């Protein structure tokens, strides 16, 4: 069975690119536009991995990670944070909140797949 990945990003073009890339590699993708939306879509579903942007309105990536780590079913789910090179301290903060790894933007589809394979096995 193919694995399901939840993405959270407020940029439509990034969302579309991420979904396109992941689906091409055989993953199921659920899209969400921010942290609040992501938490709603997470509820009661079996999610194998989360990819979230850092800067989002309503609830940002760090807050989202903290929330997810509080939910028993999703406590150990791998979470990838999309950051930018100038946000090194944010990377640390994300790590502390419980992010599994990160991808520095801008990234190429191959990089996204490589990291996904790395944390998802």
């Amino acid at each position, binding site marked *: 069975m193919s694995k399901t990945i939840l993405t959270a990003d407020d*940029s*439509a*073009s*990034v969302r*579309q*690119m991420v979904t*396109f890339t992941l689906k091409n590699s055989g993953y199921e993708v659920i899209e969400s536009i921010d942290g609040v939306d992501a938490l709603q879509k997470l509820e009661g579903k079996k999610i194998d991995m989360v990819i979230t942007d850092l*800067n989002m309105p309503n609830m940002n990536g760090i807050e989202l990670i903290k929330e997810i*780590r509080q939910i028993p079913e999703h*406590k*150990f*789910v*791998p*979470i990838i944070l999309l950051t*930018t*090179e*100038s946000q090194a301290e944010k990377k*640390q903060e994300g*790590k502390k909140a*419980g*992010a*599994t*790894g*990160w991808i520095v*933007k*801008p*990234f*190429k*589809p191959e990089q996204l797949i490589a990291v996904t394979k*790395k*944390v998802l*096995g």
Partner: protein
Amino acid sequence: MNLEDNQKVFKEEAYEKLAEIEETMLELEDSPDDSELISKAFRALHTIKGSGAMFDFNDIVAFTHDIENVYDLVRDNKIPVTKELISLTLSAHDHIKNMLDDPDNESEEMFEKRNEITNAIRSFLPGNNKAEDDVNLQAEVEEQLSDVYTIYRIRFKPDQELFITGTNPILLLNELREIGESVVAAHTDSIPNLKDINPEFCYTYWDIILRTNSEISAIQDVFIFVDDNCEIDIQKISKDDDFDIEFNEKKLGDILLDRGDIDASALQQALQKQLPVGEILIKEGLADSDSINSALAEQQFVKKIKDTVRKVEVSSSIRVASEKLDKLVDLVGELVTGQARLSQIANNTLNSDLLTVAEEIERLTAELRDNTMSVRMLTFGTTFNKFKRLVRDLGSDLGKEIILKTEGAETELDKTVIEQLNDPLVHILRNSIDHGIEPPEVRKMSNKPVQGTVTLSAKYSGAHVLISIQDDGAGMKAESIKKKAVDKGIITQDAKMTDNEIFQLIFMPGFSTAEKVTNVSGRGVGMDVVKKGIESLRGTVDVISQPGKGTTITLKLPLTLAIIDGLLVKIGPENFILPLAAVKECIELTRQDVEDAHGRHVINVRGQIVPYIRLKDQFKIKSKKLDIEQVVITEIGNYQIGFVVDSVIDQHQTVIKNLSKVYKNIDGISGATIMADGTVSLIIDINNLLRLVEHENLAQYN
């Protein structure tokens, strides 16, 4: 969805962001110190650059990169917002818009404009000549693979709370395994007692010894997400080059010392005891057993690598006369027989010393047997060239364009099997080329490529090798085969047969479907000879065909001829061997079953009627009638046939001895074997026996 759709979405988004930038700039003119506005501008530029890179707008990315850098500094209050900066940003904004409108415009004008703005922007950057010329610089340097292998020692001690970050350490270890040859040793000493365990914690840590030709950065990359909260220690132990020079593998104590698992005084203390260092260290509580085992694993790994590096230079092969090999196989066969006797005697005496020796000999003999058999193996690929030539020559003789595709060249078969396969394979290939592949003009009409393809392939299937010859020719029509078989008197008009059964008729003696006899094939002596040849190798032949699509003939052959697994059965006072490969199951035959069948030799096996042969009657062995006999159900081709015996004894490793010339043509017996007690058992050739019985019955019937 494709890349173009994606680019469209990006463009829409970029126009939005550009509008945002324009608006922000105009507001900034009034309040140049508003940090919120500056961040907004930065974020917009950042999104354009970030998304642009993903959708291959590389010119926009490179161009935006410099402005973004400037705004990064503005954000940090390192550059003030000036009128010049704002107007420059606005002209950059216009330029990006132009690039978006017409991404393929590479005119001189655009280029100049771009350079002009870029230079102006760079003048804002401190030490502006250092500004990165090209954003693509950040593209990762291709991983360098060299010929030099290095051995690394890696200690990976994860943070206890590793799991809560969603990390699976096993995946990281697997990733390391992909980089090179490795051994992994786990340290489990810090796992607490069951009552103290928190199942959400990771208590284990690992030592990995890795031999790789990748750079050390490849190893560091594996741990890239965990390097700040896990203890990762990567040490270079040695290079393969080192082995060329005088190289001694390190002593256990030295390795532990290197790793910091013990200190020098502990080592000294231990060495004085003159016992294996590892044992002492554990006993004295100076190191735990996992550390010792891990260090030992490293020692062995390095030694192994060293050995293989050296071996490369000396490994070679020698040519041996095949008679010598045949003799060797004979002798091993004798040895297996002798060993079986030894084991039986040892079992009877109950002498434990003797039993130990007998078991040792049994193990060695089995190993020797396997080794000897493997020496006789040849790859099937050695025959391919000959067949390629044959197909080419025959094809041009017949005016057909045919290529032979080969698969499974690495499949190994006993030398004798390969030699004896030659004639049957030539015959089958001829048939495929002559009858199978149509002439070019016919192929053209049926929309097939003019060039016909014959595929010869070999693959393993358990203790057998499957060799198949497949053509993409005309195939066979079950109807015309049946008609021909009726004409030739092979079957009767009202015979009810499945298509598959009908195809098997081509292997009957005196059958030929070719309309006219050519000098290549079609004399009707072909396929039955093939079948006999394969059966003499204890193999089977199967054919499937689809009209218009082609025909596939599959040969199933045993891996080796000299020794087989047999089923030892008893009939009266005599032992017989049935080849185990053909045996499907053994069931009981009671006197009641026989009476229920009213004199017909059939038995009901879970609703299926299976005919059987009474070996006792066939071999005219006199013994008293039993209430319960055994039926060994075998599968021959697509049929099931039972063989009735008095009792089934055991599986028996059978060394095949050929019968002397005088007995060579006895039907139903393929050879003999010597039993552990020195007596001789005959090996039943079930195919041959079945044919014999069929002939006898037909003769009776007629």
